[in-house]
């Protein structure tokens, strides 16, 4: 089934925030962001800005009737800086004007008098100075100290991973419209309508029941609109509330890039120990998460980094510690993978360092350590593993030996072009890391004409969740897809929702829809005069079947009869993921409903004269469970891979030492274009019939494929080493053409990784 929005998408008739017809009297807002990254605000000079024709008012912190606070997990983030400025772009004022041009012109006339303070952009420096968002977190399994003497080889290294700009093509925005009884209707381009509602409640001091937050769809989110849509919605709501007029703000791209947080940059130190059989016995890792100026979602992101620090491997002794470091950058936030990718890059780097030191192929260490069913992840959950199944199938299906032979032949033949290869296994846990968020509701109405309207907490942002929910409803009720419509997401129809995130939206909202539809079906089938036990009845193609044989009851007759008999044709399904739990004190539990596995084989070609490169192919075996929509799932995998490769090889978020964003536009921040993507992406299904907690056993597919992209970094490394075996390749991502060329030709040629412990096991 095609995405249910595809018709309106291709005709340009899908409605996004900036496309809503403007109500009379609407005012337009623009935020003035701090020009410096750290300082004390002495004075805000707005007189000149107020003179701009059309300017209605300029709002600052003192205009907030409620609390100047938008921090979700930790209350550490003011909406407007009123004294202490923590990052460049932090809102200091909001200009409200009769038109967009006036608002933007006025913003340029505002001046802030600021006493600058020392700017920190490096998380290691922040950690050393004690600038932490929260106390360090750890996940521990076994005893690494006891394990080191058992290791025959030990390797250490340092890691530096850059961030990633979401670059949803639709920028952030909101449109707030005053309603009667002191209520507000807020259109927001958000993944989390409830988060927006809560934030406005806090800032305005208005109860949540007066705040209707509506989302039709997003022009991309990727995590960037999970928490960070709150700011713009709260600003518009504040202005609308005070001025009693509709207020709209759709951000200019440069405002969006400068003022919003990104995927967290991480630094890390690792120590990995193996035995002679290449089994990883011990792994110690310290993460320095660059959280930016306030907590935002960083604590949860950090938790997932720890959860995924061993990727798809079983390591008996693990000690992982993570610091969430406060720096003077915009608060970094959710981004597809949510800290998992950073944790996984580090273990892959550690394995690469070990492979280099031992002069063995990296894949030998990878395959020797894949987690097996029954083994425990460091956080205590017992794996039901498909890791080896995916790996083995990929190796056989794509004929790894043949690929290797072809690469070796190519490299022998070419002086200036070198090919590289990497295998990238993934393992990603599905569920919000915060257990309480794993619930959803679906409100299903059957109208008396037999049509069905569904409202859930899911936000459609291109991932196809509404299509999947529609499939669930139509298949459960046994009716045609045309009878079902998915409504815009609204806090008035479904309350207290979790954001559309963590790959779990289709699972949670799909299951809630399934529960609601089943309840409705039970009631409908009870109205017939067939007088048989329920088990003998079913509905297919809108016909009620008795023991599989058509009766004269059909969908419309069921609905009509139920309506006449005054049977409720509405149902609110509630689903809360069973079995999950996690104790943050002990660092143990069963936080995930299930894991998604897969393996990718990535091939690249490097132009060793110019330092440029191409990704030749990404060949994947992916654990789908049973895909309920192969078109959508394939799109998620292809899109995730390309976004992951972008993060690892191309996309470079650049701040200067003063914390000012230099990569502040699409001309300086490059995401993959059509020529930058792998020439070939092959996807094969690992079909598993095991029961799982996914909707219709169709495993979550939003985030996991992004991490296949990590393999591109290691494939490039492989190609560089083919040209220059003594190349020094620091574990720094992304691997841009600059990094490639420097590695190919830089003058140093010292071994990058020294073994710190000599061959204990062999010597003794």
């Amino acid at each position, binding site marked *: 089934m*095609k*995405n249910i*929005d*595809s018709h*309106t*998408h*291709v*005709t*340009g008739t*899908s409605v*996004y925030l*900036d496309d809503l*017809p403007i109500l009379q009297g609407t005012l337009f807002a623009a935020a003035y962001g701090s020009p410096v990254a750290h300082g004390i605000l002495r004075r805000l000079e707005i007189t000149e800005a107020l003179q701009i024709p059309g300017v209605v008012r300029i709002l600052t912190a003192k205009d907030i009737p409620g609390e100047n606070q938008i921090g979700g997990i930790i209350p550490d983030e003011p909406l407007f800086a009123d004294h202490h400025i923590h990052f460049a772009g932090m809102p200091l004022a909001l200009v409200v004007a009769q038109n967009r041009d006036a608002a933007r012109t006025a913003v340029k006339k505002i001046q802030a008098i600021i006493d600058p303070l020392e700017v920190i952009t490096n998380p290691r420096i922040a950690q050393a100075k004690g600038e932490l968002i929260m106390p360090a977190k750890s996940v521990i399994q076994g005893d690494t100290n006891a394990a080191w003497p058992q290791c025959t080889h030990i390797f250490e290294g340092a890691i530096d991973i850059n961030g990633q700009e*979401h670059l*949803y*093509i*639709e920028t952030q925005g909101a449109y707030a419209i005053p309603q009667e009884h002191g209520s507000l209707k807020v259109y927001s381009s958000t993944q989390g309508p409830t988060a927006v509602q809560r934030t406005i409640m806090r800032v305005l001091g208005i109860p949540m029941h007066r705040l209707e937050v509506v989302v039709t*769809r*997003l*022009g*991309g989110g*990727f995590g960037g609109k999970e928490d960070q849509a709150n700011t713009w919605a709260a600003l518009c709501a504040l202005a609308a509330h005070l001025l009693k007029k509709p207020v709209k703000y759709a951000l*200019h*791209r*440069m405002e969006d890039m400068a003022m919003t947080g990104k995927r967290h940059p991480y630094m890390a130190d690792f120590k990995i120990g193996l035995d002679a059989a290449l089994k990883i016995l011990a792994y110690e890792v310290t993460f320095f998460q660059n959280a930016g100026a306030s907590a935002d979602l960083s604590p949860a992101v950090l938790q997932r980094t720890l959860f995924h620090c061993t990727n798809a491997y079983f390591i008996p002794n693990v000690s992982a510690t993570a610091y969430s470091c406060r720096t003077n950058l915009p608060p970094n936030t959710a981004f597809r993978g949510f800290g998992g990718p950073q944790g996984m890059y580090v273990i892959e780097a550690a394995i690469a360092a070990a492979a280099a030191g031992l002069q063995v192929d990296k894949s030998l260490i990878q395959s020797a350590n894949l987690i097996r069913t029954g083994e425990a992840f460091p956080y205590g959950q017992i794996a039901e593993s498909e890791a080896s199944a995916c790996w083995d199938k990929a190796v056989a299906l794509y004929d790894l030996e043949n690929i290797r032979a072809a690469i070796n032949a190519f490299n022998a033949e070419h*002086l*200036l072009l070198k090919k590289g290869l990497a295998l990238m296994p993934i393992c990603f846990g599905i569920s919000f890391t915060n257990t309480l968020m794993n619930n959803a509701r679906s409100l299903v109405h059957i109208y008396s004409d037999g049509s069905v309207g569904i409202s859930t907490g899911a936000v459609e*942002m*291109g*991932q196809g969740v509404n299509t999947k929910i529609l499939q669930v409803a139509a298949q459960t009720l046994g009716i045609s897809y045309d009878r079902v419509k998915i409504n815009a997401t609204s806090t008035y129809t479904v309350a207290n929702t979790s954001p559309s995130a963590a790959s779990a939206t289709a699972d949670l909202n799909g299951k809630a829809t399934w529960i609601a539809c089943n309840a409705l079906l039970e009631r409908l089938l009870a109205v017939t005069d067939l007088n048989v036990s329920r088990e003998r009845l079913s509905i297919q193609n809108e016909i009620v079947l008795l023991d599989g044989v058509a009766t004269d009851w059909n969908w419309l007759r069921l609905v009509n009869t139920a309506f006449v008999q005054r049977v409720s044709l509405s149902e609110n399904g509630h689903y809360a993921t069973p079995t999950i739990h996690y104790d943050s004190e002990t660092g143990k539990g069963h936080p995930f409903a299930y894991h998604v596995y897969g393996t990718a084989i990535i091939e690249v070609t490097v132009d*060793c004269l*110019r*330092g*440029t490169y191409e990704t030749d192919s990404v060949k994947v075996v992916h654990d789908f469970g049973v895909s309920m929509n192969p*078109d*959508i799932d*394939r*799109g998620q995998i*292809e899109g*995730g*891979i*390309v976004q992951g490769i972008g993060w690892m090889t*191309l996309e*470079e978020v*650049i701040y200067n030492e003063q914390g000012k964003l*230099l990569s502040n536009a*699409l*001309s*300086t921040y*490059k*995401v*993959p*274009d*059509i020529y*930058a*993507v792998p020439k070939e*992406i092959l996807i094969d299904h690992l079909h598993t019939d095991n029961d799982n907690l996914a909707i219709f056993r169709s495993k979550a597919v939003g985030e996991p494929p992004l991490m296949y992209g990590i393999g591109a970094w290691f494939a490039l490394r492989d190609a560089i080493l083919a040209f220059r075996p003594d190349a020094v390749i620091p574990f720094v991502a992304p691997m841009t053409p*600059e990094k490639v*060329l420097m590695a190919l*030709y830089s003058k140093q040629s010292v071994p990058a990784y020294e073994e710190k412990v000599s061959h204990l096991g062999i010597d003794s």
Partner: protein
Amino acid sequence: MLRFILNNDDIGTALPPGMLLLDFIRYHQHLPGTKTGCNEGDCGACTVLIGELQNGTMHYQSFTSCLTPLGNVRGKHVVTIEGINLPNSLTAVQHAMQDCAATQCGFCTPGFVMSLTGFCLSHKAPTLTNAIAAIDGNICRCTGYKSIERAAARVAQLLEPRNGSTPAQYAAGAHILPAYFVHIPGRLEALHSTLESANDVAAKPIGGGTDLYVQQHDALRQKALRFLYDQPALKGIRQEGDKCILGAATTVADLVASPLLQAYFPYLSRYLKKVSSTQIRNMATIAGNFVNASPIGDLSIFFLALDATLVLSDGQKERELPLRHFFKGYKLLNKSADEYIVRLWFYLPSQHTLFNFEKVSKRTHLDIASVNTAISITMQYDLIDDIRIAAGGVGPVPLLLKETAAFMTGKLLTESLIREAGFLLQTEVSPISDARGTADYKRLLLAQLFKAHFITLFPQLETAILIR
């Protein structure tokens, strides 16, 4: 009054001609299908088609409406996604996108549909390569492009039966365009658009707008502008004797399409594929690339190596100025405020002259160079008779590396000469670290691209020695 046709409607407007087409479409005509993505021509979400009547037939090109002033569409047919929608079905392009699941969040989709529709209306051969080239200026953040590639392949297939018929004729019969397109040529002919400021010498000259509107987005809207893009006197590529003469408003797309330039520069399309995107190449003028004064302008580097000469005019009299004397310092030009470029000319390369252009940017396509360089080298047997090396991104202006050239002139071309010249080259440049790379990287990259010129042009050289 400024007049044009927008989809099926005749437009006459007194709004400032410097207003951007995108704002006019979205906020004045309330056609929200054309999306605002980046406001700098880098994402293609705002792509529209601009049709011009040339010798009785319509020629459509894709433009990014976010950088197109209303003044540049006077007398033309502007087509948005709303203007191609059919009353009761999808167009063939839309069908292909839907069938291939080439749309996820949908925000970039109208731009892709317009670019592919533009491809259907172009005279390019219906190949997959050309179909993909048509969407090289459209960014999608969701799909990873593979589904869009599959849709593009279908579109190319769709055009295969076109054979003899013109693209517009074929499109009309193949469910690609609505019926009203047939009447556009007649309607445009009858349309008389005037624009007072078009010849106002005091007004600020503007070409395609692809750089000016990025730099001065808000300021240009109200300014008096002098629109040079459509002036016939500034158009055209022609040969006079051994000279090639190009009008200042020649677009990059015009360069690629020129049979004359193709004959003298067989790899021209390969070089220019790395210069921005299809949309921007349709809009950007060569003079604009010079006047923008970027130290890294691709065309500045290209024409410096050809030792091109500019002809400048202040409206009264003309003067000639070699391009190598045009750049005085960072963003400083040897040009008075009332002067504008009329044309440029250069001597066509002799049969002993070899030319090469190299560019490396963070992203290979649709990106600004970290370093770009061009070389023109004339050989007399194994001796270098004449050589010009231009390099961008390694100094405050586009550089002509004169000392290196002088050193090499008259010498036997050998691997060791190239290596020695490579050292001298480094003394002529002074790159700085910025978003496009560190100074060290740019030095290394220039050295590599300098070698790349010779490896490309002289396959008989020992590559292994050169790259050591």
